[in-house]
């Protein structure tokens, strides 16, 4: 793990507004994540974990504060800049897998490479490599509905890493899986982390949190505690 900060968020404020009420989702939040670090974010439902993850992933705006990604201020980036930064640096894994039903396993994994204009032959090589790695190669021509939950999440992980992102953001990656499949996915993430990928994972599971280097605990939009986890290996 490097000592350099990949993510440095300072004084982050995030509000949700409706016509009548304004809710503070994140309140004066400060966090940092070092390159190669595996961080778990925990807290009760509604504490702002997923909002934080979306802001880190540049899927959502912040209202106030600063967000340095690799020392670049990205808080004020426009749609195109965010999209560029995202597609070259960040991979996402969701609780509900979020695969596109109309695309095959191969095509789902290939998608990020398509959008970064990787040539077809290179795409094929890289997709197959990553499918081998997550042991789903034999299902490459199947559609998501034809796979089990564990298999779908392995495909989602494959898609998240196919572009060799520096950062993986995982939002409750085992939430929809049984313990065996859950462990397999956590094992995969750990391997990626050991290979140098930074991981930020939102989770409810103390078990999963143990795979991380550090746990950030949140309540009502604020960080209330940060602890180093006793890292376990499956």
């Amino acid at each position, binding site marked *: 793990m490097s000592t350099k900060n990949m993510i440095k968020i300072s004084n982050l404020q995030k509000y949700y507004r409706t016509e009548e009420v304004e809710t503070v989702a994140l309140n004066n939040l400060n966090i940092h994540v070092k390159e190669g670090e595996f961080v778990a974010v925990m807290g009760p439902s509604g504490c702002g974990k997923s909002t934080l993850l979306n802001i880190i992933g540049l899927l959502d705006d912040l209202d106030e504060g600063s967000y340095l990604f690799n020392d670049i201020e990205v808080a004020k980036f426009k749609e195109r800049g965010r999209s560029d930064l995202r597609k070259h640096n960040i991979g996402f894994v969701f609780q509900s897998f*979020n695969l596109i039903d109309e695309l095959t396993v191969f095509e789902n994994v290939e998608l990020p490479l398509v959008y*970064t204009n990787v040539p077809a032959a290179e795409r094929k090589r890289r997709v197959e490599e990553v499918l081998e790695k997550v042991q789903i190669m034999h299902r490459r021509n199947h559609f998501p509905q034809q796979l089990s939950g564990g298999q779908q999440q392995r495909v989602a992980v494959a898609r998240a890493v196919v572009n060799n992102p520096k950062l993986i953001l995982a939002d409750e990656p085992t939430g929809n899986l049984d313990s065996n499949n859950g462990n397999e996915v956590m094992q995969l993430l750990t391997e990626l982390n050991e290979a140098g990928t930074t991981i930020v994972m939102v989770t409810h599971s103390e078990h999963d949190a143990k795979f991380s280097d550090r746990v950030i605990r949140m309540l009502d939009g604020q960080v209330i505690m940060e602890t180093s986890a006793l890292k376990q290996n499956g």
Partner: protein
Amino acid sequence: MIFKYIKAGWRNLKKSKFYTAINILGLSISIATAILILLWVQDEISFDRFHKDYKQIYNVHNIWKGGDKEQISNNTPGPVGFYAKDVPAIESSVRIAGEYSGVISLKDQKDVYSGLSIAYADSSFFRFFSFPLIQSSKPNVLTYLDEVTISETLQKKLFNGQDAIGKTLLLRKTPFLVTGVFQDMPQNSSLRYDAIFPMAYLAKSFTENGGNGVWKTIDEDLGNYYFDTYLKLRPETDPEQAIAQINNRFIQARDGNTNTTFKLGSFADKHLIAPDGNKSALRMVQIFAVVALLLLFIGAINYVNLSTARAMDRAKEVSIRKIVGASRQQLFFQFMAETFLTFTLATFVAAIWVGLSFSAYNSISGKSMVFDIHNSALWILIGSALLLTVLLSSIYPAIQLSSFKPISALKGRSSKPKNSIFRKGLVVFQYTTSIILIICTLVIQKQMKYIREFNLGYDTSYIFTVPLNEGSIENKSTVETKLAADPAIVSYSINGLYDPMSYGNSTGDIDWPNRPKDYALIVGRATIDKNFIPLMGMKFVEGGNIKGTPADSSSYIINETLAKQMGLKKPYLGAQMSLHEVPGTVVGVVKDFNFNNLKTPIGPMVFWTHRFAGTLYVKTTALNAQKAIEKVKAIYDSYPSEQPFEYTFLDSKFDQLYKSDLRTGLLFNIFASIAIFVSSLGLLALATNSAQTKVKEIGIRKVLGASIAQIVKLLGREFVVLLGIAILIAGPLAWYFSNEWLANFSFKTELSLWIFLVGASIALLIAGITIGYQAIRAAKVNVIDSLRDE
């Protein structure tokens, strides 16, 4: 990348089969119908534009002024074309005169061909127009008195396809040598002839027959108006100036004593704009073009409505694509590609529809259109219409779908309110066009019914007409005796109305005491016998019929319009007048009757007994019609003649007058029905989608005790409100358009309120059926299923 877009698009189409089917069906029907309409439109506007110099060609119209009345027609006297030769601004000119016998025979008069379209033309004809000569035996045809040019089809007919050049044919027993064969004149030509004879021959006959009074040649004869004169102006010439010089010559020749002047009408407009400026034909073409566009709009709106209504189904996919790196532009093009794919499929299906319906369409529209794949103008028209539709259909959904915020969309939140106002606007537009089309359809039907049932002022039933041959005319009294003796013949008349629609012939040579000095009238005049008015069932408003005695030679029967235009006061009887300087007395006034189509007002008309009467009218009965025809034919054939026996029933002749109106009305109704159907398809899909998106709400309401009727009301309410708004917008617009259309008719039906009420009710009914069905289905769904889905 494009391949990937298309693949993704194809899978999406396959995934939602119902919506895909509705989209493809609706779009393909819209496109096919629009193509058919545009073909018709293109055919109509292409008339006479195939001539190389069509922009420089003008048709000379005569304007005959009588008091505050003005009559404009195509015919000119011979000298107009002759004067043109001396006008520097006129490059060339050509005169055409119809030869109405329509009969050509081969040697010995054995093979007789009738019903042909024949004309005499100046020798400049083939250089003036772009009618290619396929074969000719000399460089310039129509220069000799005894030569003729015939069409390719006539060559086949007369000479069994053998070379006609050098062969002889007979017109009115005179032999003519075929010196040229021209390509058949296209169906989008207002000039269509089977044979063209030299004007020099007509000129010679005219002179040999003594000419017309002091005028001994057709180039001098200022009295007979039987030429169509065409002028080709030099480029950049002002038509007004060109015709002014001809008018000056004409006025000089008439010593300043004339009510006639001439004006030029563009040849390219001849088919769609009448000489008097009546643009009803052009208006119909414009209406059809608008209907074609409306159909494409409706198809496009269906697509846009469905795409945007179903946007939430695509939200997850869009979000994921964005999260993994798709730019907005890439997503925009993906959705554009999907629309193009849908349109390609729809166009393919549309091509099948067009292929299947083409011959039926030709027969309904009364045209013989061909889908000419080399016709670039047609492709440009169809291509731009399609492109416009594709762009209209694709851009908004593509912008909307590609603009989703990924996280919101993943969680099922979208910018719904804005989108739904847009969609509601489109639904209102669609309802509005449907209602306008329904109301216009009803108005057109009402006018068609009015035309069919219009009281013409006489009875055409079981009357047939026969142009008599020379022998029958010479032996008129024998013929009459034979006709009178036949029980199959109810009554008969021998008169001068060869073509009743032409009101005999028009003349300005009418006078009466106290006629204001500068007040002239153009009246229709016809030679009749005492049987004519009773046979036609015309009614007298004053006085009575001629008696069939020598005293008739100074008797006139006029119609009400003429009585009014002459300024006669009641009682009209005994009024003095003269026609062609023959003095006489008005003995009867007939109720106005209509010999023309209902777009033309009734003109003044006078009946007398002078001049040539060569047409036989026979009234018979349904039962005896065949016997009567056989009897007349036997009488006719007893006098040898080159002119074959021909008969026409008056009612079918009058049907022809309205045929084009009835046909266009029918076409409009078909197109409007298709547009309404496509609209309904879109609304059905929209209602289905609306029910699907409210599954959870319906479930909860049912758990809480809502009845099926209440659920149906919930789902239908929104559409009913939109329909109400559409009715309010459509009513005045439909009233305006219907009035505009009816303004083309001199005799027209009333625009009653019930038409609007029925129109709105039909729209309500159609909406009720499409939406109600979906609403009831949705309301009946098992609550547990609908809630579990959520």
